[in-house]
Every structure is written in C-alpha cells, then in structure tokens.
C-alpha cells in the first residue's frame, strides 16, 4: 500500500469517526457527554505506532473536531489536546498494549488528559462555557464513557492501524 493511500485511509477514518461522534452517539449521550471516538482513534494509533505518528493523527482528528459543525469554540483547542494525548499515550505504551486492563488504563488516562487540556485552554481563553466546576463534572463522565466503549472500538481500530503499518517497520 502506498504512503498516500495509507494517509487517505486514516483521513477517511477520522472523518467517519467525527461524523459518528457528532450525529450517532449524541443519541446515546449521558447528560450531554458522548464517547470521544476521535480520541479513541488517536489512542489506538498511539498504542500501535507510537508517539510521533499518534501526535500527527491527533492533530488531524482535532482539527476536524474543531472545524466540523456544530463546533462553536475557537479552532485549534481539540487539535492541541489530541496532539498531547497521542504523544503522551505513545510514550507511555509499553507492555500495557498487550493486556486489556492496560488498554483500559491508557484510555482513561487519555480521556482525562484530553478533556482536561481542552477545558484548560477554554479557561485560558475565558470561554464562557468552561468553569472549573463544569470541568470537574464533565471530565469523570467522559473518562467513564470512553472506558465503556473501549472494548467495542479499540480492538477494531488497533486492527486497522496494524494493517496500515508499513511492512518495513520492525
């Protein structure tokens, strides 16, 4: 598979995930909180390919989240959050990827880091919607929901990223 084709597959994956996250999972929201599918894709990329690659996927997924409707916040906030998530989870992967519990831990950590960084940028930019109190409510719920959908999403996406891996690596 050529390099461009692989990038194309990832781009399609990102667009599909963001669309699903916005339109399908909103029907299953827990008081507004929906599973961060885009973040799960970034975490899967980090588990399979490491920090460098995952940060790139995180930037792309974040930009789509920032610009796709109904986003109304300052663009770049999710991009920054997901770059950080991809990089940190990529660094932290190790033996963790092989066990289910390790993956769940990575997802919980990723959801915590991602949602927190997003909330922090909101506080810095004095976004009226973000307060410390609302962040404290949303972050644990986001972590819980992401962990709940992990068994359904992560294995599929990890499999896809394994397939996309260039043959000359390892």
């Amino acid at each position, binding site marked *: 598979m050529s390099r461009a084709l692989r990038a194309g597959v990832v781009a399609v994956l990102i667009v599909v995930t*963001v*669309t*699903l996250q*916005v*339109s*399908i999972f*909103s*029907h*299953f*929201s827990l*008081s*507004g*909180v*929906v599973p*961060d599918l885009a973040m799960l894709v970034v975490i899967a990329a980090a588990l399979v390919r*490491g*920090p*460098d690659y995952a*940060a*790139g996927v*995180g*930037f792309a997924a*974040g*930009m*789509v*989240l*920032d*610009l*796709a*409707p*109904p*986003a*109304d*916040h*300052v*663009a*770049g*906030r999710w*991009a*920054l959050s997901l*770059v*950080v998530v991809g*990089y940190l989870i990529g660094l932290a992967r190790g033996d963790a990827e092989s066990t289910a519990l390790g993956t769940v831990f990575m997802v919980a950590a990723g959801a915590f880091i991602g*949602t927190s960084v*997003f909330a922090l*940028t*909101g506080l810095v*930019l004095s*976004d*009226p*919607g*973000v*307060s410390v109190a*609302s*962040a404290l409510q*949303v972050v644990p*719920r*986001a972590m819980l929901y992401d962990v709940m959908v992990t068994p359904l999403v992560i294995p599929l996406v990890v499999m896809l990223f394994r397939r996309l891996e260039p043959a*000359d*690596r390892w």
Partner: protein
Amino acid sequence: MTPGPRRSRAGVGLLVLAALTVLTLDARRGEGSSPLDLVRSAVASVLGPAQDGATMALRPLTDIPQHFEDLGELRDRNEVLEAKNDQLIQQLRVSGLNQQRAEDLVGVRRLAGAKDFDLVRAEVVGLGAAQSFSQTVTIDAGTRDGVRPDLTVVNADGLVGRVVEATAETSTVLLIIDSGSTVGGRLGESMELGFVAGDGDVSDSARLELSLVDHTVSPREGDVVVTWGSRGGAPYVAGVPIGQVESVHSSPSELTQTADIRPYVDFSALDVVAVVTDSADMTTRDTAGGPR
C-alpha cells in the same frame, strides 16, 4: 528507519506550535471575522450533509433508546391529555361558547403552526458533546432554505435557540442553555423585562436563570417567561415561550432578583425544530404595542 526520540520531539513540537497558531488566528473570532471562517464553512459544507446522511441512515438504531423512553413518557402524556380533553369537553358542554379558549390553548401548544411566522422545518442531525463545553446542534436546513445567522429556532414546546452559522445545507444553532447565551425575556404575568441566561447543562435538570431589570418586582412560581424580542426579529422574535419560573432567589448584595426557569423544551431529546425565517407580523405588533 525508526524515528529517534529527537525527531519525535521535534515533530510533536511542530504540531503543538501549529495548534497554537490556529488557536491564535481564530481567537479573535468573537470580535468579528477570523481567517479560519472560510475553512470552517468549507468543512461544514462537506461534513454537515455527512452528519445529515449518517443520522438518516442510522435512525432505526438510534431510535431504540428513544423508543423505550418515549413509551413511558407517552403513557404519562396520554393520561394528562385525556384528563385535559375531558375537561375541555366539559367546558364546551357547560358554556357552549368556549371554543375561542380551546383554540387559544391549541395555539399555545402548537406554536410551530402559528400563522404569524414563516417557518422552515428542520431536524437535528448533530449534537455538540458536553466535552466541548458548548451547547450547539447541527440542523439540516441551510441558506438554501432561507436560514441565515441570528434567526430564532423553536420547536413545538418553545424556544430552542438561535442560528449562529449557516452553510448551504446545514446550520449551527446555539441553544439557549449554553452558558454564552442570553435571551431578553418577559414575565408573562407582569410584562416585566429581564434577561434569561443558560448554565450549560443539557440534562432534564437544566435550568435557566432569569434576572429582572426592575428589582422591586418579584417573579412568582409558575409564571411563564416569553421572549421579549427585538426590532426586526433578530436574534429572537417576540412572544415565544421560554419556560416557567420554578424558584426565586434574592440576595441582599445584588440589586436584581433572580429566578430559576424550567425550560419548556427538552434539550436532551431535541429532534424536529423550526427556524423562524420571516416574522414581519410579530415584530410589527411588538414594536407597536410593547415597551421597546
């Protein structure tokens, strides 16, 4: 070729810088235009229809939880409606001439059918997650249907929000429960003016906060709050029901009294909405009769 830690760090540093650059470029958005507006509307014109398609395609699946929720709710509502119906039938029998009143009741319930408005029907196809800390939805009507920014969005129960961005086929609506949303409200009973602000909660316990301009007036529980409206009907047309006063607070340190408003609209289950595209009649009436 395995990227070493140095290259990795440089790459990530670049990406963080790129994100910060985008942030900085877009941060002035509140004050007017941002260089990213073009990109944003380009993305919206592609992903809006995609959300629309996804919502339609997976409707049977997403309707499942709604179905169970609805069942109980419909039973309750059925009981209430039956009781109401009996009452109305009795009233009709007793006075014989209560038709006008019944019509009024129907009129309030079916605001979406009011003749004074030109409405564009739309469905909610995307919801902003609470993780983004802003309460916005995508609807499947756009400039092609006559939707433009600053128009009022309602549903059968009352005020939903206003359009903040519109592309050809979809638009983004800021819900009145968003923390950044303020609506001019009027207490139905006393005609007192005030401001209704959201608190960012979408759940059933979501409440709006009404602060009255005149602090000598105190709202009563059960009072209806409607929109106050502005000239030209933008951003909100007048006379749309917002909610009911649930409790009243007053603190000696603040000059204005505040009240918690329970919105009529259930924001966690938004589906069919309508955009008020032309409200000439309503606004003329308002500017002529109401205190502006």
